[in-house]
């Protein structure tokens, strides 16, 4: 998903670029933050064994108001438009149910589970992934009491193809309708939704041209949130939608606040994930990062039951970290975001030169620039620690500021032309560029020319095959918890097109391509996860297309009365499905 980036907020994550994308991670030294290689990496509940209702949370009580302090309104809460992490986390956690959903681990490092949400299980395929069948649970209702039927799910999915889903994720739509001809049910009235079909009231069938193992994951996005056609109003859609989850909108004042109260028509017996402990949930959209930190630190009055959506403000990081009482209330840990410096595989051909560059980079400077080791830690792998199958390894051991001697050794007898580092011409981009130049030019091992690119043209430029950037910074966060959504996107040479690439190193190794293809097609994702971890290490050991720089960490505060909070490893937010307000 996308990570929310605010224009004015001083992004602590300077290395990744100011535009969208990704910027968050884990500490290889922080125990328990990465997935434990001995445990299962991911669990896909094909049989529907996840218990309903979700087991009660220990110590939880009903009542109270949960307050969520946020800097600005959600861009979208209309389900099919949602793609930003905060909206997915709070939207699906509180009012938008989906066909499938993640049951995130309360304990960091435990496996993420893909389960049936509105559906009884995570989806059944009998033909290796071309056809997927989802059966709806009994007793699921919209907030107005009308039952949720397969037709409503199909209508919702249909919306995601057209204007009302244009800003949402497009994986399913692209797989089902590669030519993207279908414009959604409001325009292409009466036409079937490509690849999506209701069979009776209870069954939704997805049919694709090619097998896709990621379908159960894709449907966790609220593109699969049901929408009643009869109630759909294209002018009010953004603010007036029916809830299917434990809370419903009581009052929504755009840019100001959103108040949710209990949805009486949500039945816990149909829901394997969510609870309904607080009486109300209130979002205050006018609290910037500094004030969120201040208020939750003080934790007085209603703020005692508050969640700060933003990370702890940079100026308060040291104070919070130093105060054990406060640190107890910190929700922190690994995120899906990893940052790299891509080395153009066609332009820097010598693997030892690429290795030398890895040794030259000063990760400690990057971390300092990002705001310290609470929000960024040095990375050594391609996949972030929360990616299932993450394998902790360090192919190039060195100090945090690199190893110039090793680099020199690798470079003996080699001569490299001046390297061009391309960066987005923003304050953060410039800072990152300064670190790159200073790092690589140590002892004159390399010469770096800095090439600023206008914000407007940045991704077009670096995404164009054959561009003249030798080095370019980028960040990445998976769109679903699977190596496919990291390695499969960033390092599959067969995906390289003339424009719009995400593989900014233009890494293209037939052996790796073949391996990735094999892994993509594996029906057993739990097994695939492990293999991705191995592949990650292989790529770094043998080919080194990128310099792993940092993993972004999450570090935010909750109030003294907030119970049941834990870090969502997928969205880098406080998971609210088990949340309650202490007495």
């Amino acid at each position, binding site marked *: 998903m*996308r990570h929310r980036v*605010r*224009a*004015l907020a001083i992004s602590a994550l300077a290395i990744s*670029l100011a*535009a*969208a*994308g*990704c910027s968050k991670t884990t500490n290889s030294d922080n125990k328990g933050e990465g997935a434990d290689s001995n445990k299962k990496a991911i669990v896909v509940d094909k049989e529907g064994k996840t218990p309903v209702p979700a087991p009660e949370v220990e110590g939880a009580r009903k009542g109270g108001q949960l307050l969520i302090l946020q*800097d*600005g*309104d959600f*861009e*979208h809460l209309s389900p099919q438009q949602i*793609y930003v992490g905060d909206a997915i986390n709070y939207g699906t956690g509180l009012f938008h149910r989906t066909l499938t959903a993640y049951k995130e681990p309360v304990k960091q490092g435990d496996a993420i589970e893909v389960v049936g949400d509105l559906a009884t299980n995570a989806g059944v395929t009998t033909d290796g992934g071309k056809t997927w069948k989802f059966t709806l649970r009994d007793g699921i209702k919209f907030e107005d009491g009308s039952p949720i039927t397969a037709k409503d799910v199909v209508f919702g999915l249909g919306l995601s193809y*057209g*204007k*009302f889903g*244009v*800003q949402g*994720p*497009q*994986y399913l739509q692209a797989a089902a309708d590669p030519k*993207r001809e279908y414009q*959604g049910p409001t*325009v292409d009235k009466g036409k079937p939704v490509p690849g999506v079909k209701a069979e009776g009231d209870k069954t939704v069938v997805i049919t694709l041209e090619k097998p896709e193992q990621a379908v159960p994951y894709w449907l966790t996005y609220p593109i699969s949130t049901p929408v009643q056609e009869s109630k759909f109003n*294209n*002018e009010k859609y*953004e*603010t007036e939608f029916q809830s299917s989850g434990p809370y419903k909108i009581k009052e929504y*004042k*755009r*840019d*100001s606040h959103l108040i949710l109260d209990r949805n009486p028509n949500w039945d816990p017996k149909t829901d394997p994930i969510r609870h309904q402990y607080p009486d109300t949930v209130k979002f205050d*959209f*006018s*609290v*910037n990062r500094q*004030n969120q930190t*201040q*208020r939750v*630190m*003080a934790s*007085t009055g209603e703020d005692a039951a508050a969640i700060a959506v933003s990370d702890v403000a940079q100026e308060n990081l040291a104070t919070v970290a130093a105060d054990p009482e406060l640190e107890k209330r910190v929700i922190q840990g690994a995120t899906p975001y990893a940052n790299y410096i891509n080395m153009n595989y066609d332009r820097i051909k010598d693997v030892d030169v690429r290795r030398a560059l890895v040794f030259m980079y000063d990760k400690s400077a990057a971390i300092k620039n990002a705001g310290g080791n609470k929000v960024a830690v040095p990375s050594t792998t391609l996949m972030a620690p929360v990616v299932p199958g993450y394998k902790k390894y360090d192919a190039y051991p060195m100090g945090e500021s690199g190893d110039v001697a090793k680099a020199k050794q690798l470079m003996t007898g080699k001569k490299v032309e001046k390297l061009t580092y391309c960066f987005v011409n923003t304050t953060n981009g410039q800072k990152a560029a300064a670190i790159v130049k200073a790092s690589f030019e140590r002892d004159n091992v390399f010469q770096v020319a800095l090439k600023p690119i*206008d*914000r*407007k*043209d940045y*991704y*077009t430029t670096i*995404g164009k095959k054959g561009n003249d950037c030798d080095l370019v910074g*980028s*960040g*990445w966060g998976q*769109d679903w918890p699977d190596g496919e959504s990291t390695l499969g*996107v960033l390092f599959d040479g067969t995906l390289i*097109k003339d*424009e*719009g690439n*995400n593989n900014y190193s233009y890494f293209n190794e037939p052996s790796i391509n073949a391996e990735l293809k094999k892994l993509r097609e594996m029906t057993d994702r739990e097994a695939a996860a492990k293999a991705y971890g191995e592949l990650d290490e292989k790529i770094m050991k043998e080919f080194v297309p990128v310099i792993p720089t940092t993993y972004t960490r999450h570090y935010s505060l909750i109030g003294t009365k907030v119970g049941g909070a834990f870090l969502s490893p997928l969205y880098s937010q406080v998971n609210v499905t088990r949340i309650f307000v202490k007495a």
Partner: protein
Amino acid sequence: MLRYLIKRSLIAVITLLMISITTFWLFFAGSANPAAQMCGAKACDAAKIERINKSLGLKDPIHEQYGRFMSGIFTGREIGEGADAIKCPAPCLGVSFRTSEPVLDIIERGLPVSASIAVGSAVISVLLGVSLGIASALKRGGWLDKFSIGFALTGASLQIFFLGLLLQMVLVYQLKIWDRPRYVPPSEDFLGWLSGMSLPWVTLGVLSAATYARFARAEMLEILSEDFVRTARAKGLTPRAVNIKHALRASLSSIVTIFGLQLGGLLGGAAITETTFDMPGIGKLAVKAVGDDNLPIVMATVLLAAFFVVLFNVIVDAMYAVIDPRVKLS
């Protein structure tokens, strides 16, 4: 008078037109790329950009987009195509690129916040600044005068974001003796509105009072040396009558000018104030819109800000005519 109004309105419309064209042009000439912003860095292929651009109407030539925007203001328009079209009645400022919400609704939400800040702080700054300036002019060289000069200098060099953040940090979060800045509509909770607005009011009010104080002092000193003030004293009037009825009255037109400029320009300053105090007003909206490349909102806020400047210029002119019998509106 009527002719004056017609003339001024015409000039205002032309001014706003020029500003709208410039803004539109600058937006596209600059580094804006709304589709890429919405698309994010990933999975953002040409096809997706294309779809977003199409949904935003950004594929048409600039002058057509501009024409659509402008005609929407006067005649309303339909946004989007076919069944997905949204009716946007005049004055239509378009819909937000990001949220598809009509910009007018967004502006309507922010305006009371900005207006609250502007009016409240203006009252404080005028009352405080003008009385301080006058008092110090009358007691020139006295301790009050010295204080007021110091105040004017400090006030002019302090920035709202600095002082605002400092006061919030100390008064609200550390000492907890001042209410947290927030906006609630006065119609819903009048006292809450007062207490929520009080810190921005006082901060902004005191800071801009410095400008008024400096200005009122200089103006009063000048007026006090005018012949007609001497005449008033020669008549045997009390100092009070001389200072207030004669001197202050004469300095009103310049004070009103500053007041008008300040109020008219307040939307410009609102960006910083509202960001500092986290107030969901027009200023904060504008800052976010610029960062998001959200053209309709950028246009609307720029035009609104310009509109207020123009409006207050007219008001100031009209006030002149009320204050100064020599001025005829023509």
